[in-house]
């Protein structure tokens, strides 16, 4: 940690915050807007027999959540590596 300068620290942390905010916006969009508030409207569209609103709440949003967390893990772990924060190697 001593190797990181203040600027680097800020850069790393800002990246983390930005990623977190983006992921939370997508989370709220699927969990509350598409899977909740707008589900009634979306239900007018049918895909493969699934009313779209029902589908988002039953399966779509869940898949999005899994992908979000996987993306978060991947990007943050990459960022750690970039900044030499591989704690396991120590």
């Amino acid at each position, binding site marked *: *940690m001593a190797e*990181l300068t203040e600027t680097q*620290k800020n850069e*790393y*942390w800002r990246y*983390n915050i930005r*990623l*977190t905010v983006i*992921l*939370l916006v997508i*989370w709220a969009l699927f*969990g*509350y807007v598409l*899977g*909740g*508030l707008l*589900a*009634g409207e979306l*239900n007018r569209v*049918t*895909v*493969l*027999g*699934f*009313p779209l*609103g*029902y*589908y988002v*709440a*039953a*399966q779509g*949003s*869940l*898949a999005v*959540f*899994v992908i*979000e*967390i*996987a993306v*978060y*893990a991947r990007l*943050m*772990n990459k960022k*750690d590596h970039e*900044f*030499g*924060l*591989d*704690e*396991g190697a*120590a």
Partner: protein
Amino acid sequence: MATQQPFRWSLGKIFGLYTVAFLGVTVLIGLAEQFLGLPNRWIGWLFMALSLGIYIVIGVITRTSDSDQYYVAGRGVPALYNGMATGSDWMSAASFISMAGALSVQGFSGLAYVMGWTGGYVLLAVFLGPYLRQFGAYTIPDFLGGRYGGTAPRLVGVLAAVLCSFTYLIAQVTGVGLIVSRFLGLNFNVGVFVGLVGVLFCSVLGGMRSVTWTQVAQYIILIISYLVPVVVLSWQLFTFPFPQFVYGQLLQRNSAAAIQVTNDPKEAATRALWKQEADAAAAKLKDPALSDAEREKLSAQQKTAAAQAKPPAAPGATVANYLLVPKGIGMWNFLALTFCLMVGTAGLPHILTRYYTTPSVKEARRSVAWGLFFIFLLYFTAPAYAAFARFVVYTRLVGTHIADLPRWVTLWKPAGLFDVVDKLGDGVVQLADFVIKSSDFVVLAMPEIAGLPFVITGLVMAGGLAAALSTADGLLLTIANAISHDLYYKIIDPKAPLIRRLTITKIFLIVTALIAASVATFRLAIIVELVAWAFSLAAASFFPALVMGIWWKRANRPGAVAGMVIGLATTLLYMVGSRFYGMTWWGTATVASGVFGIPLGFVTIYVVSLLTAPPPERVQELVSSVRYPKATVSSAEFAH
């Protein structure tokens, strides 16, 4: 971690072999059923003995008395396996047995549970998991004690952890009793205590280490047994083995069938008869001279009859009630419940502690992803289960002759989950003749619905048992550790040697298990409700204090204590008020009580922290250092 590579490889081998062996034994039992006529009861016993045997053996092999091993599995559980352990720790008897059925009965509104119980992991991944790992405490109250200092935060943490976990534990123990009694024909109380043996063996002998590896083994059993019946049914109906992708067509057909049933004159006549029965019971209920027992019986009868009298679609509607999205207050409650379940998921201590067990922050992040993936496998199948079960009821039960019921109906009718009565007396089964007493039949009877041999039902039993036991394991350990580590060691006797601490943990494990078991034998109806409440309680007590503690340096002890107490108190007040005294804030349902306590908890921490002195410099540095994974945390609070 180069040194861990061979270890991980052998784990893959061990669990791969275990899965193959388990499937092999299942096939052998199936063959014995087919060719030797192995009786059903024997199959039940074999599965029960086999699975409990596996858990006990794992418990014995992984026994330990090292404190790091006992409390956090030596912080050496790779992400993939921690993910599986999280999956079975998380998925309880309710997820396994009841969720698909609840979706089938509640329709769209029930999806709040599906989204809530998965969406919470996003919060956990970005706000808590990796940072908790970096802090490196032993328990959640331990984190609160270390971060905020002093005894008060730790003490409130212990109280909240026990409060949330205990009701949840009773529900799991009840689940074990139900499964064992239903499949083996044992008395419920005996079933409860048989199940406890399986739980106690692991947790007492090896703490978190044994529980982790047992949970991995339990996940494998539960996911196989959940997927097999519905995959087979999907193959039969669509010659396609992924029910999750084809049930859309069933939703359409079910909706059409529901509308047809609504307009069918014979169905309408049957519903009219139910309506009469409901009205008659309601009229009798007005009699003040009724005894309590009679009153209870009558109101149950009235409820059933009223439910049967309700058509499956609104008159003139183009879609079934099942697919209708709630509006107004209904939508508010749907969103509020989803929110409480999500935040509660990220605040339940038995799940949070799982992220202490990974070797690094990186692995903690990965393991949240694996955890949700493994949960997702079951949850995205549940709505398919619900649709398939409805479809089978519409197509293979409705319209059949009462003397010629499908095999699964005759097999499961004695279990009391549902009943078929010929209300109209025309000898034909109407939808309104099918009385659902417990929607659990959806999962339990699925193997027979798909025409599978009894061995698959035995497999489902083993899966349900695994789900209940694995969650019970995690909860039990959380309670015992909160009491022995945080209350006894950290507050009462900080000089206690390791041996005494572990002995006390073990004693508390046994005592807690026995108390939970004896409470479960009362079969209180309120337990199911209490479990849903646990989410709101965890959400309002832990989540704000944990998130603020990690993300805001300035959060201090008075703020955290006030926030937890006020969050918890507001939630409890609304729960008890709305459930028992007719209190209502904007028509919010009791299960969504946390929707007020959560924001209030955050605001309280913020305001009280700013009004009081900032936390010591040392703590503020600790909070910033947690942002950068490589930094070693060396605060005295965290050096055990």
